[in-house]
């Protein structure tokens, strides 16, 4: 599993791991064959995710944790979950660092 990158890291990129990944605001998304094309207009960057990285993106809906994403993909791909968890963590971390994923905003505390 790997992320096909359109440009080198640096500049407007973050450096965080997240619990419940969700697309960052302002990221445009288009499916293209089995890939997913992402576009950040603020830095005019196109990122193309291959099939497997695209599956991680599609499951990053703010409801699933990284382990839960890995568990779902392990069932679909019939692969070892522990091995996939490392790959999923890498993809998510990469996309967070590049500003395409963020952590789900915390819900306001009830009084």
């Amino acid at each position: 599993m790997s992320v096909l990158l359109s440009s080198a890291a640096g500049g407007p990129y973050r450096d965080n791991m997240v619990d419940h990944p969700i697309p960052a605001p302002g990221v445009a998304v288009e499916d293209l064959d089995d890939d997913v094309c992402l576009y950040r207009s603020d830095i005019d960057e196109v990122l193309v995710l291959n099939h497997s990285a695209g599956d991680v993106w599609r499951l990053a809906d703010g409801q699933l944790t990284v382990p839960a994403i890995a568990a779902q993909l392990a069932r679909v791909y019939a692969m070892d979950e522990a091995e996939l968890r490392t790959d999923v963590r890498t993809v998510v971390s990469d996309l967070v660092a590049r500003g395409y994923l963020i952590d789900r905003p915390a819900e306001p505390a009830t009084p």
Partner: protein
Amino acid sequence: MITLRVLGAAVAVRADIAYRFADIPRTDAPPDAEVLADSPPAALTELTRLAVEHSPLLCVHAGVVSGPEGLLAIPGESGLGKTTLVAALVRAGFGYVSDEALAVDRATGQVSAFARPLALRGDVWTLLGDGIGPAPSPDSEQLVAPSLLGRVDTDDAQVRDIVLARRDGGPLRVETAARGDAVRALLAHAFNHYRAPEASFRAVVALVRDARVWRATYADAPDLAAGLGELLGVQSASATEAR
């Protein structure tokens, strides 16, 4: 002054220069801008600049020709010799659409032609064969009417092939490429996608989604033109007459 319809904009040009741009359609619409340059080559440069500036279309720096199944677009990488390549493609039997811009309606995906004259250097003349007039000196440029090179095609059509070309001096190689690479290349060479960035991105993806994408490396424009002609079933007029 004569007003020309260029990339969806209306640009006025002095009549004595406009006749050199015979393959660009006229319009009665009020002009968005006026070309002030007084020599045809300078006027062509300014016409292009003003048209892109006022165009409501997404304009991508690319050569565009037409084949039997639709348009072929070649994003304008640096050092490509795009105009020479387009001229060679037209000589090889493709229809001339533009040597400068792929102009796309962001909402509909419709492509508009920009059949401007080609500014060709003297050292390119011998590559293109006979019938296009006396060559200028090797280090000077001359405007060539597209109709002297071959067929001019201003009919609306869809992009069916995108070629990511690189001139590396080696033997011709043409192979399929990933569509994502074409998305990156087209946006990287867009003149005005910043006006509507997200709509431009989506328009480019929609265009690429319906196209075949190729990667080509080559030494000379006629080599690539012949190779693409064979790949896409295009024959030059001279080859057709010889049969």
